[in-house]
């Protein structure tokens, strides 16, 4: 039987924990609301530019641009989006598991990583995978400039033909209760971009007119496409992180409540037992005195 004092101590410490998880839940939920709005605001641009790239690649078979050329795949570059901090449920783990599955499906291919977020760096180190660049400490209200180092590395590697494909892995925000790990192909640009659904059928027959010309437009459009998609995915990841953290902390808080309830029961029982025992001791002591 644990002593009264030790139970009292444990109740106190669980109450402290509950306070902390409660506070973290509230912080996460405030951040979550902002991050969810940001996701809603940044999605249209990303979708529109993705559709445009798909249409372009579907319409013109011979685009004079390296980013549209499919090459035999020997090396795949992966942009891995993870969180900086933990305590956010399984979202990082789920993404890493998907990376492993993706790699297992492609034997004989080399993989190199550009990582966004500290958890992803840890993952690479633990798994002995090759990272060629990483950034962390991105702010959830951050600007697109913060992720440019990562996108530039990826674009350069592809341009130098060291990477033959570029994929992005991140956690897609569906709702506060549901976040899904996702992988999407970003380069080379073809009709199988994004989720791989080829639904971007040409809305017209024939070709576009380009002003000033195809080359100039693509020079602007391709980096813009790449950056804005990566940026938007990082925003998705933030919304997922805060949602997952809020749910994890909410569960932790309610678990703490349950534990406190159970321990309080035990505590009260023990206390009552101690009182009863003391009374019976006094009573039997008094009896002994009377009889004696």
């Amino acid at each position: 039987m644990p002593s009264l004092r030790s139970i009292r101590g444990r109740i106190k410490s669980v109450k402290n924990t509950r306070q902390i998880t409660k506070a973290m839940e509230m912080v996460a939920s405030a951040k979550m609301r902002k991050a969810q709005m940001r996701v809603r605001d940044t999605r249209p641009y990303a979708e529109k530019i993705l559709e445009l790239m798909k249409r372009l690649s579907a319409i013109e078979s011979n685009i004079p641009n390296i980013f549209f050329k499919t090459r035999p795949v020997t090396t795949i570059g992966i942009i891995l989006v993870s969180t900086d901090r933990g305590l956010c449920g399984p979202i990082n783990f789920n993404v890493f598991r998907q990376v492993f599955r993706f790699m297992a499906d492609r034997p004989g291919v080399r993989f190199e990583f550009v990582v966004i977020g500290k958890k992803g760096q840890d993952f690479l180190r633990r798994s002995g995978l090759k990272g060629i660049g990483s950034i962390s400490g991105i702010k959830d209200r951050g600007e697109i400039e913060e992720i440019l180092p990562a996108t530039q590395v990826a674009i350069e590697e592809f341009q130098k033909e060291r990477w033959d494909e570029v994929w992005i892995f991140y956690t897609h925000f569906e709702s506060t209760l549901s976040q899904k790990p996702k992988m999407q192909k970003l380069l080379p640009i073809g009709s199988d971009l994004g989720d791989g659904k080829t639904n971007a059928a040409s809305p017209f027959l024939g070709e576009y007119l380009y002003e000033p010309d195809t080359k100039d437009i693509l020079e602007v459009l391709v980096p813009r496409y790449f950056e804005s998609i990566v940026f938007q995915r990082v925003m998705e990841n933030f919304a997922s992180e805060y949602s997952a953290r809020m749910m994890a902390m909410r569960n932790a808080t309610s678990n703490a409540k349950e534990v406190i309830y159970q321990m309080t029961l035990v505590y009260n029982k023990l206390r009552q037992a101690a009182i009863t025992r003391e009374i019976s001791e006094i009573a039997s002591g008094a009896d002994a005195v009377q009889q004696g």
Partner: protein
Amino acid sequence: MGFILSLVTQERELISEEVDFIKANGVDGEFGVLPGHTPFITLLDPGELVVRKGDSLYAYYVSGGVAEVLPKSVVILANTVEREDEIDEQMARKARHNAEEALKQPITESERQTYLLDLKRETVRLSIVARRRSGQHPGQLTEEDGGGPFHI
């Protein structure tokens, strides 16, 4: 019957609805779009975007980007957009003044280009504001507009 206009920036979606006419500033000059336009893609210069929907006209300052025109839809992927009431006139005036002063100094060619761009940008901003204050409809034709495809 109009066409669907999507005006989006990295940060937000400003318009996604059916409109009747737009006028924008491409790198090769101003262009107007009515429903059924030939498909084309163009880069945008800093300039005014005028949108007509029914009897209403809206003006936006677009800092640049890409426009994709299709017969039944137009997508404008803009770098930044300001609604006419979001333009800070004092800031624009000051920035234009700075650029003008800087251009008078002996500066390198690349600096000159930057300031010329500044000057152009602020001038467009201020002209949008000025027109708004004069109560003139953004779509009303003035002499300098020179007619063009824009008939209400």
